[in-house]
C-alpha cells in the first residue's frame, strides 16, 4: 500500500505565531527599541566625545585599574592603538556599544531568571530545555524574526544578540546558587533568615564568581553574535567584515577580524580577573 503522510506545517505555525506576536506585542517591541537604541546612542556618543587617543588612554587606565596586570594593560594600549591606526576606531566603538548594551539587557533579564530557577526546581525543569533550544538553534535563525519585530538595523541586532547570549547568564546563576553548600543555607535558616536575606547575604555573594563566569560567557557570545548581526544592519567591526566579504577584500576582512579578536581578548581578561575577586 502506498500512502503519503501529510507534511506537518511547522514552519507555517511558527510564522503564524510570529505574525501574531508582531501585531500584538508592538508596545513591548517599541519599549525594547527605545531602551536599546537610546543605550547605544549614549554609549557611542560618550566614547566618541573625546579624541580616540585620549579614549584609548582612558580605556587602558580602566583596564589597569580593574586587573592590576601589566601584560593586559600593555596589550590593551597597543591593541587599541592598532585598531585606531587601521581606521577601525568608530567601528570598534559601535561594536563595543552594541555588545555592552546587549549584555546589560541579557544579564538583567538572565540573572533574575537564573535566581528564580535556582530557588524553584519546577521552574528550572521548564527553563532548561528552552535554554538548550536557544543555544543549539543556529545563531543566524534569530536574525530572521528580529527583522519583522524591529526592522533592519541595530535594535534587531541587539534583540537577536540578547536572545543568543542570555542562556549562560541563566545557567551559571542557577548553578552558582545551587552550589552554595547546603550547610550554610541551613545555618542561615537556623538563625531565622528569610528568603530574601538568605539570597542577598549568603547565596548571591557565594555564587558571585560563578555568576561572573556566566557574564563572561554572555559577553563573548554577544560579541560573536554582534558580528553575525552585521547581516541585518548592525554596523561596527562585523559590518566591516561583512562588507569585505561582499567585495572580496581579504585584507580588509582580516583587519576587521583582528580588531574583533583584540576586543574579545581584552574583555575576556578583564572579566576573568573580575570573576576571581
Amino acid at each position, binding site marked *: 500500500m502506498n500512502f503519503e503522510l501529510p507534511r506537518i506545517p511547522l514552519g507555517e505555525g511558527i510564522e503564524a505565531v510570529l505574525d501574531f506576536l508582531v501585531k500584538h506585542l508592538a508596545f513591548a517591541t517599541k519599549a525594547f527599541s527605545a531602551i536599546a537604541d537610546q543605550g547605544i546612542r549614549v554609549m557611542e556618543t560618550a566614547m566618541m566625545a573625546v579624541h580616540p587617543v585620549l579614549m584609548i588612554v582612558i580605556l587602558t587606565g580602566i583596564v589597569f585599574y580593574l586587573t592590576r596586570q601589566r601584560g593586559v594593560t600593555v596589550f590593551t594600549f597597543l591593541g587599541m592603538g592598532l585598531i585606531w591606526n587601521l581606521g577601525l576606531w568608530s567601528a570598534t566603538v559601535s561594536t563595543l556599544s552594541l555588545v555592552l548594551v546587549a549584555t546589560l539587557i541579557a544579564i538583567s533579564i538572565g540573572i533574575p531568571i537564573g535566581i528564580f530557577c535556582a530557588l524553584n526546581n519546577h521552574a528550572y525543569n521548564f527553563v532548561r530545555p528552552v535554554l538548550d533550544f536557544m543555544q543549539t538553534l543556529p545563531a543566524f535563525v534569530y536574525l530572521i524574526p528580529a527583522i519583522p519585530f524591529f526592522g533592519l538595523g541595530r535594535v534587531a541586532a541587539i534583540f537577536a544578540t540578547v536572545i543568543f547570549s542570555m542562556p549562560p547568564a541563566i545557567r551559571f546563576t542557577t548553578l552558582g546558587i545551587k552550589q552554595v*553548600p547546603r*550547610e*550554610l543555607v*541551613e*545555618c*542561615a*535558616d*537556623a*538563625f*531565622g*533568615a*528569610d528568603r530574601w*536575606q538568605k539570597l542577598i*547575604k*549568603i547565596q548571591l*555573594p*557565594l555564587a558571585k564568581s560563578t555568576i561572573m563566569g556566566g557574564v563572561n560567557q554572555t559577553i563573548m557570545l554577544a560579541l560573536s553574535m554582534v558580528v553575525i548581526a552585521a547581516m541585518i544592519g548592525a554596523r561596527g567591526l562585523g559590518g566591516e567584515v561583512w562588507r569585505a566579504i561582499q567585495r572580496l577584500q581579504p585584507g580588509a576582512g582580516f583587519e576587521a577580524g583582528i580588531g574583533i579578536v583584540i576586543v574579545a581578548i581584552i574583555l575576556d581578561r578583564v572579566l576573568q580577573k573580575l570573576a576571581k575577586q
Partner: protein
Amino acid sequence: MEKIILKNVTKVFGDNPKKALAMLKEGKAKDEIQAKTGAVIGVDNVSFSVDEGEIVVVMGLSGSGKSTLVRCINRLFEPTSGEIIVDGQDVRKLNTDQLREFRREKFGMVFQNFALFPHRTVVHNVEFGLEIQNADKTVRREKADKALELVGLKGWGEKFPSELSGGMQQRVGLARALALDPDILLMDEAFSALDPLIRRDMQDELISLQQSMRKTIVFISHDLDEALKLGDRIVLMKDGAVVQIGTPEDILMKPSNEYVAKFVEEVDITKVLTAESIMKKSQDVAYLSTDGPRAAMRKMKNNAIASLFVLDKQGKVHGIVFADEVAKLIEKGEKDLDQAIVKDIATVSPDTPASELFPLLQGISHPVAVVDENHKLKGIIVKGLLMAAIAERGGNV
C-alpha cells in the same frame, strides 16, 4: 522546669510518609517499610524533655537519627508527627513567619563543620544572627565583640574564617550562637571535626562557660566519652529510636539492654567514677580550737584509724595528724595539737575522676580529703574504698 518537651516525635523521609507512618504504628520493621514505600524512618517515636539549664547529650552512631532529631526541634526538618514544645509553645503550630521569629528568639545553633560564611570576616559571621534581626549596627558589633571575647578570640574579628585553625573556627561558630544570647543552644556534633586534644579543650571550655551561662543545651555527639563528660543526662539513640535515657552513671551502671551494655563496655570506668561517688561521707575529725592531743587520740582509737583530719572553725581542712606524732605530744604533756599537724596535704574536688585518684593514693599512707570550692571537708577516700567502688561496677583495676 522543662524547657523543651518532645512527645512521640517521628520523622519520615520520602514521598509517602503517611503510609510509612501507618506501617510504623502497626509495628512493621523499618527495612520492610523502606522496601514497600521507599520511605526512610529518620526519627522513630522519640520522647524526652530537657530542663532549663541542663545539658542533654543525644548520642548514637552515625545514621542513628540524632542530627535529624535536633533539626526537628527547630524545624529545619519538618517532623512527620508528634509534638515539640519549647517554652510552652507548640513549635509545629507556628506558621512560617512565626517560626522565623521563634528561631531568632530562642535558638542558637552550632554545626559540625562550623558552617562559617567564607565571604564574611569573623566578626561579621558572629554578627550574622543580629544582622538578620536588623539590630542596630553599634549594638550588634558590641555584642559580637563580647561573644568573641567570651570564646577567647578577642582581636581576631577582622580575619576571615579561612585564616583560622579548626579549633578557632568552631569558637567562632560558638560565638555566633552566643552573640544572640539565646535560651537554647543546639549543638550538632559541634566538636566532632576537631583534633582530640582541641576537642577536649573545647569541652572543658563549654563546661566552664555553662557554669556562668546556664543555657539549655541539646548536644549531639557520637562520642561516648564526650557524652559522659558534658551530659547532665544522655539520650542514647539507635536506628532513629531512643534506647535509653539517663544520667551518665545510669547509662554506665544500669544499661537497659545489650546494645547499651556493648556500647559502654569500652568505657574506662575510672574516668566516669568521681571522688564524690566513692568517698566516705561521715568520719570523725579533730577540731583545731577544741581538740587536744588526748581527744584526738581517743577519736582515732574509737575509729581504729591511724590518722585524723583537722578542721578549723569554719569546717575547712587545716591539716592531718598521725597517731605516732600525737602519742609523742601526750608523752611530752602538750595541751595543744598544733605541733603535730601536717599542713601540706593533697586534697581533691568532688568531681575528680577515679583515674586521677590512683596516683594520689599510691604515694601516701593516709586518706585523701575531698573538699568543696571553699575547702570544706566533704568526705575522705582511702585506697580500699576506691578499689571496692571500681570492683562493684565491674571495672578492671
